[in-house]
């Protein structure tokens, strides 16, 4: 295969990856980044750029979706760390102080509650909860994405559910309050 043909095949494969995973990746990032849509889009784009660069070296030992989500989750962790750093030294990053949240989030009490509850989880707990329960990855796929055992995934899931049960207890007991908020 000539170099030109290789590039064409690579581009075609990449386009397929983007089309197949774009929506799910954005949804995952949105849910793992406190409902910040702009940040989610930025992180997903960066993950795709990294995937594009690494695609020639992808050996197909795992599903391409799992491979891409590993890149995405790492990118999400990186973004979250960077955000924590920005919070530590706000003066050095004044231009980013107004981190816009999507308008729909600003006045939506329920979303805000859910976002806060998810933010109290550890990175791993949040990842497994979002991947398994919200994005419907299997336990095995999630373990592959996070490079850990299925047992670890289950353990994090258990803790995440326990924490969310406590934080969102009132919402579960009084559905009318949920609707009112």
């Amino acid at each position, binding site marked *: 295969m000539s170099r030109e043909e290789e590039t064409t095949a690579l581009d075609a494969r990449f386009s397929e990856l983007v089309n197949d995973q774009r929506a799910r990746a954005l949804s995952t990032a949105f849910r793992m980044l406190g409902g910040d849509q702009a940040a989610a889009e930025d992180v997903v784009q960066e993950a795709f750029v990294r995937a594009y660069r690494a695609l020639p070296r992808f050996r197909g030992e795992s599903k391409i979706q799992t491979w891409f989500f590993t890149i995405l989750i790492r990118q999400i962790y990186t973004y979250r760390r960077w955000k924590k750093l920005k919070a530590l030294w706000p003066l050095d990053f004044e231009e980013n102080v107004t981190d816009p949240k999507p308008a729909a989030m600003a006045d939506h009490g329920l979303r805000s509650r859910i976002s806060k509850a998810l933010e109290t989880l550890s990175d791993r707990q949040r990842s497994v909860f979002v991947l*398994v329960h919200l994005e419907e990855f299997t336990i095995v796929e999630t373990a592959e994405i996070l490079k850990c055992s299925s047992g670890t995934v289950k353990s994090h899931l258990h803790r995440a559910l326990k924490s969310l049960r406590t934080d969102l207890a009132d919402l579960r007991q009084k559905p009318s309050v949920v609707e009112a908020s």
Partner: protein
Amino acid sequence: MKNENLSADDQGMVDLIKDNYQAPDLGRMDGVRFDEKLSARISKSQGLAWGPWALAFAMVLVFVAVGVNQKRPTPSMPEAAITAVEEGSFEDLEWFDNLVDEDELSVEFEELPEEYVAMMMIMDSDSDEYDDY
């Protein structure tokens, strides 16, 4: 999706989160705008791919240039000579002359602290060899 491992209560909570916590524009997104931005970003990253290598190469060139032009490192004052100055046992100039050659000595004298030079001047008051100091 119903998860068999969840109790009815937990399933209710998961559904609540799932239904009320999703990107607002996701349903309407056709992907065109996203793909256009992504294409631009990939093009930019390809353009920048050579950036780090070019920077590293430039830095190597700078280091080489600086290294070539840098003055030959001054040999450090032999430890024994410094000890001799400090202990005041520096009378035997012949011993000192044999220790370091003249060229190196002249450089070293320039870098010696003033009090050492003063001590040596006192000890060598009969000699006019280092009057300049």
